[in-house]
Structures are given as structure tokens and as C-alpha cells.
């Protein structure tokens, strides 16, 4: 018998699979087609202080083995998430869930984390620092160690729940940013968010995405994600949630060998809504093939 169990910031997971924020809503669409309690956890739709419609359409473009999205953090705002979405989530998911939080100022992050902190169903916070800082000239919080650490410190002050910072890969030195988050009180690091990409339509000769640029994700980005998780694992002591192009049981194992304690599945959920349960069912066979008894034992095994 093999064991899929792992642990993330002191909370045991039945398996390492965590559908990534923005690809899984608040869980109930997927609960219509399978029992989502088979998952390790999931990270719910990025939530902000105020309701957001997001960006104009088209928001989606297809690329080779990948896609670009520019949804723009569409969400009903934290009050409505608590009032309307979390009750539906609790009905179909009975394990600790990951709360993905975004903001456009430090105050907005703090406001949202503080509101959600009272919700028992939330096991971890996953703070997305890829958003532009409106008070910082529009630069993403995640692009400088100082700004990332400011968000981390401010959120740390308002919650005792495990605080995971989701980093942007669109930086020159991911390691310095991960270390800054760790030093500022983060309990974990999640990476990678999407890479900034663009696709141009040869017929219209213009970008396909209305917002011109968007987040590039899918199997094509996996080597970048593996490399960044590997680098960050060498530099920090806190656990890592690894993600980026993961689409199979083999990918999950590769990501854990790079240093991930848990693994996010993003774009693949959109292409195959059954992707996660299929991977969970496939893992024991693939583990046996590679002589792995406990998934937990292989975390960082490539180092």
C-alpha cells in the first residue's frame, strides 16, 4: 500500500492535490460532477475587498499546450463571498479550504484577510501578490522583496491561520522575494502564478486578449515552475505549494521532487474537469512504478 498523505503548514492532507484559484470557482460547479472531498484541498476564487467585474472580453486565448487568461479577478467581493459563496462551499466540501486573497493596496489585503479569518472552513490563506499596487505606481507587489514583505507582515498581524504567499514568476530573482516573505512571517510559499504572455491574431493583426496581455499557463510552463520551486526550496525552510502546468500523476511527483509539499492543478481543470480525481486515482500506480511508498518522503528529493 502506498500513502498519498502529505502535510501543509501543520494540516494533514489526504493527498497533495489542490485545484488552483481561478480554475475551480468555490467548488460547487465541480461538486456536481464528482465528490470534491477526494481532493487534498482547493484554493477558492481570488477574493478582493470590493466586488469586481474584471476585464473586458475576450479574456481567453489558446496557445500551444497552454492558454492565456485575463479575467481580472472577477469576484463578488469578500462580504458576498462570506454570505453567498462559503455556505455553498461548506455544503459540498468538508475539509479545510484555502482562501485566495488579492488586493490593490496593503489595506485591501488586510481588510479581506481580517473578514475571512473568522470563517472556520478556511484552513490557510493564499495571498496573491501578483496584483498591481495602486499606491506603488501600478507595480505588482510580488515584484519587489520590500512590497511582498510589507503585504506579508500586514496580513500576518491579522490572522493566526497559516499564511501562504503566492508569488509571481515575472521577476528577476524569485529567491530573494520568497526569503523576504519567510522573514516577514509567512508560513508557506506558493508558486508559480501565471507568466505574463500575449497572443496576436494574424487576421486582425491585434492582440487576441482585450486587455492585450494576460496570464500564460498550462503544460508549456511546467519547466519554469519546476525550476523556480527547486530554487526556492533551497532557500527557505517553510513548505512550498508547487504549481504551473501540472497535468498528470508524473507531473505531481516531479513537482514534489523539486520541493513542493502540495501541488496545485490549474489550467488542466478547465480542459478536463475530471483532471484531479483522475490524477489521484493514477498516483498509486505511478508511485509503484518509481518505487515510491510515501509521497511525503520524496519532497525535495531532487536536491
Amino acid at each position, binding site marked *: 500500500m502506498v500513502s498519498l498523505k502529505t502535510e501543509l503548514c501543520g494540516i494533514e492532507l489526504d493527498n497533495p492535490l489542490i485545484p488552483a484559484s*481561478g*480554475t*475551480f*470557482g468555490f467548488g460547487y*460547479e*465541480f461538486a*456536481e*460532477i464528482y465528490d470534491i472531498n477526494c481532493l487534498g484541498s482547493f484554493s477558492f*476564487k481570488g477574493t478582493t475587498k470590493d466586488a469586481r*467585474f*474584471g476585464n473586458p*472580453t*475576450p*479574456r*481567453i*486565448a*489558446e*496557445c*500551444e*499546450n*497552454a*492558454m492565456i*487568461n485575463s*479575467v481580472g479577478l*472577477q469576484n463578488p467581493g469578500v462580504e458576498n463571498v462570506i454570505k453567498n459563496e462559503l455556505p455553498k462551499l461548506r455544503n459540498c466540501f468538508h475539509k479545510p479550504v484555502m482562501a485566495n486573497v488579492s488586493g490593490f493596496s496593503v489595506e485591501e489585503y488586510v481588510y479581506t484577510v481580517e473578514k475571512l479569518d473568522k470563517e472556520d472552513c478556511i484552513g490557510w490563506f493564499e495571498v496573491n501578490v501578483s496584483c498591481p499596487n495602486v499606491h506603488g505606481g501600478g507595480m505588482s507587489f510580488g515584484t519587489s522583496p520590500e512590497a511582498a514583505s510589507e503585504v506579508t507582515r500586514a496580513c500576518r498581524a491579522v490572522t493566526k491561520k497559516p499564511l501562504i504567499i503566492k508569488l509571481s514568476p515575472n521577476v528577476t530573482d524569485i529567491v530573494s522575494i520568497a526569503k523576504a516573505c519567510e522573514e516577514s512571517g509567512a508560513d508557506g510559499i506558493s508558486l508559480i502564478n501565471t507568466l505574463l504572455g500575449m497572443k496576436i491574431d494574424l487576421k486582425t493583426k491585434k492582440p*487576441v486578449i482585450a486587455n492585450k496581455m494576460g496570464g500564460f499557463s*498550462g*503544460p508549456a510552463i511546467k519547466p519554469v515552475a519546476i525550476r523556480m520551486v527547486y530554487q526556492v526550496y533551497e532557500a527557505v525552510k517553510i513548505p512550498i505549494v508547487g504549481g504551473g502546468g501540472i497535468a498528470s500523476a508524473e507531473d505531481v511527483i516531479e513537482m514534489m521532487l523539486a520541493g513542493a509539499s502540495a501541488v496545485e492543478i490549474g*489550467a488542466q*481543470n*478547465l*480542459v*478536463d*474537469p*475530471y483532471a484531479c480525481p483522475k490524477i489521484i486515482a493514477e498516483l498509486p500506480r505511478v508511485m509503484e512504478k518509481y518505487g515510491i511508498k510515501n509521497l511525503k518522503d520524496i519532497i525535495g528529493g531532487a536536491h
Partner: protein
Amino acid sequence: MKDVLFTIINNEKIAKNTYETVLEGDTEGIRAGAFVNLKLDGFFLRRPISVCEVEGDRLTLIYKVVGKGTEKMAQMGEGEKIWTLTGLGNGYDLTKSGDKPLLVGGGAGVPPMYELCKQLIREGKHPSVILGFGSQDEIFYEDKFKSLGADTYVTTVDGSYGTRGFVTDAFDKIDYTYVYTCGPEPMLKAVYNKSATSGQFSFEERMGCGFGACMGCSCKTKYGNKRICKDGPVLEKEEIIW
């Protein structure tokens, strides 16, 4: 929603750049005005295609070749298999039609009118149909609508067949109780402005997942934000913001 493995039993060109694919498989839960999402080998995202006809275990799709995905579909042959998510989209609500509904399809918006027309006739309604095309070589299914027993009008933009002009140029000849329509957005807007009754309008948008998870195809309506894939593709006339 379910993921069904369909087998192609026929795939043929029926008009300029237009193909009809007949698939065999589990068609349970596929409604008029809904769509299916096809996983083609070599492409990352699925291809959402509207439902043209469901008859027993046969599903007919009609699509225009507009890019690499539909190009690939057009080349697929008998016996090839396609994983297909079915049961997607709200579809048309037939209960509001009245006795004489008007069905208006433009180009690639014609196919969903066929299953709808069939079902309305089966329920004893008397639908009229306007089919709009650019030119005579793009026309398909005129005879099939006529065989169902629907009063069928064809318009072409260049006047090479039927009434010259747009679908709205055929409206004045017809007495109707309700409108169902699907087509390019400028056509939908023209139908919205021209129609004297209430109706249902089917929209198109680039989609990520097709089942409501990614918020890739959101739009604003008078009743709040909606996802074209899950809360649509059919919207009520009263909720559309134009």
C-alpha cells in the same frame, strides 16, 4: 455535464467553409440551444460548438471553418472518436414561444435553430424561420427546415438568393408571437431592435472551460453578471444591456 466519447459516423461539407458532423454516443441531457465542448488532439482548449440536432444516440453539429481547430475537425473521418463535454449551457426555454414563434439564424447561428424548430413543431407550434447568409454558396438546411413544415425565408447580403439584405429585411412579412435567435452580435442587436415581441438571444464568446469555472466569458446583464457558458448562451431580451 458529462464527458462522453463520441464516434464520428459522418463528416461532410454542406456549404462554403461549412461542415456537418454526425456523432454517435450518449446524448442524454443535450438540449436545444445548448452546446458541447470538443477535445481535439493537438489542441489545448476544447472547441465549443452549438447543438444542431439530437436524435436518439445521434448528435449533429454544423460549424464553419474559422481557425486551426475547426480545420482539424473538418478533416476528421468516419470512426474517429472525440471526447465531448455535453449538457453545457442553458439552452432555449420553449415554454415562452406562443403559437407562432419566429426563429432567426445567421450563418453559424443557423444550426441551433434546427433542433429548436423540430421541438416546437413537435409541441404543435407554428414556427416561421429566417435564415441569413452572406451569399448563395453559404446556404445550408433551407430544405430541411421546409421539410419540418416551418415557413422558411432566406436572406442573402449580396442578393444572390432569397431576399436581398439582412435577416431583419424579412421580418415585415411575418406574424409572430416570440423571437428565438442566434448569430453574430451585430445581427443579434439588429434583431433586438427590430423585433416587436419578447425573445431569447444566444451569444458567442471565447471560452476557457465552458462549464462556469474560469469566468473567461462573463458579461454584464440587467440581472447581474452572467457567464455565457453556464448562465447562457441564451439570454432573455429583457436582461440584455444594449
